[in-house]
């Protein structure tokens, strides 16, 4: 699984089992490190709209998110490393969401839960709803649905854990907190006279390239 240095350094599972039978425990730093990271993801306690009810249900006895190492939802961004954007992000709320994300310590992850969080959902044509939180902060897992069921959130959670597990600690694919050059703080949009300013953060949400009309590429540039 995976590629690059991380995968190359991993111990082959067969060899691990074989050595284990002889009473030798072999692992790599990256395995150990990622194992620790992936099993102690702490989500932040906040919800924005109806999707938040599903998120709450996910943590309750019936679905019991605690089984996956996400025990308590933390009431402070300083203690959390997973932001679940569950619900409608209005333009009035968006700066606060980005600010909270900035306040979380690295390494941190984002799950965008529900049609509203990923695109504006049923309110996309409205005047006050952000058309997707990924305009301002990087999202690791998107969950479609209106609302997604708790199983979908658990699946997103497991997807995120798999993603963390596969992350190499060196090379270009390494997590942001191990990259001194990486952008750590995300600009908080200002509430302007007609819209949020800027309307998108171009670094995380590049404008899709315009469709190529015709084939005379010489004319361009």
């Amino acid at each position, binding site marked *: 699984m995976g590629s690059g240095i991380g995968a190359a350094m991993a111990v082959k599972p067969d060899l691990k089992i074989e050595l284990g039978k002889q009473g030798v425990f072999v692992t790599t730093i990256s395995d150990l490190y990622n194992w620790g990271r992936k099993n102690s993801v702490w989500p932040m306690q906040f919800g924005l709209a109806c999707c938040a009810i599903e998120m709450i249900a996910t943590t309750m006895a019936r679905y019991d998110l605690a089984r996956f190492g996400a025990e308590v939802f933390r009431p402070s961004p300083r203690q959390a490393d997973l932001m679940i954007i569950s619900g409608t992000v*209005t333009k009035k709320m968006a700066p606060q969401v980005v600010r909270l994300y900035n306040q979380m310590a690295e390494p941190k992850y984002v799950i965008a839960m529900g049609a509203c969080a990923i695109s504006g959902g049923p309110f996309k044509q409205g005047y*006050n709803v952000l058309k997707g939180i990924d305009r301002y902060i990087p999202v690791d897992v998107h969950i479609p649905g209106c609302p997604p069921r708790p199983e979908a959130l658990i699946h997103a959670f497991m997807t995120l854990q798999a993603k963390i597990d596969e992350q190499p600690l060196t090379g270009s694919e390494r997590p942001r907190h191990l990259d001194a050059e990486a952008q750590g703080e995300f600009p908080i949009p200002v509430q302007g006279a007609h819209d949020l300013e800027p309307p998108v953060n171009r670094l995380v949400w590049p404008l*899709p390239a315009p469709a190529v009309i015709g084939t005379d590429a010489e004319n361009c540039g």
Partner: protein
Amino acid sequence: MKSAKEILMAIQSALPGAQVEVVLNPSPSGQHSLRIDPASALAVAVFLREDSELALDYCSNATGVDWPDKEVAEKVKVAKVVEGVEQVVEETIKHVEPGYLEAVYHLFSMKKGPVNEPGPVVLRMRTVNRTDQVKLPSLTPVWRSVEFQEREIFDLFGIVFTGHPDLRRILMWDEFEDHPMRRDYVDPDDYEYEPTPHDEVLKRAEEQKAKAAEVTQ
């Protein structure tokens, strides 16, 4: 339940100075409303609430309506001298009817109960125009329930309610300048990415694409 006409009579006999008129609703529901003059609105509102027969003690809903300027074409017959002969000619005269903003209130009576008094009684108030004379008296002092809804009307339509205890924007942020529910509101251009655009959004997405193509050239 008294009809709108009867309520009008009751108001006129209790408050002789008040200017009230019935706005007819030609649809099958026939839900006629009372248009009250902003100057006497508070007095009329207090009367409607306090009158023992009406006892309209609950305002369930307040909302706004935007009536933009509209061009009206009228056909008029005029006498004209055409080629030396006097003739009656039909001419169309166009004039612009100035627009206005309207606040609409739906009143019910809790005291009388929904069975005896099915509602609502509909009140309307109009501003002078849509630009600078947009003040209306707040009815929050009479019906406390409209406090948030008048704030919403202020936010989305731009009607300024004098006498409101806490008139701030409620859905949009304080720095926001437009009124999104007005007919001439143009929402910001954030349709640059549309997987399945259609209708109005398709038009806008196409414009966006053309603009982006221009920038890259």
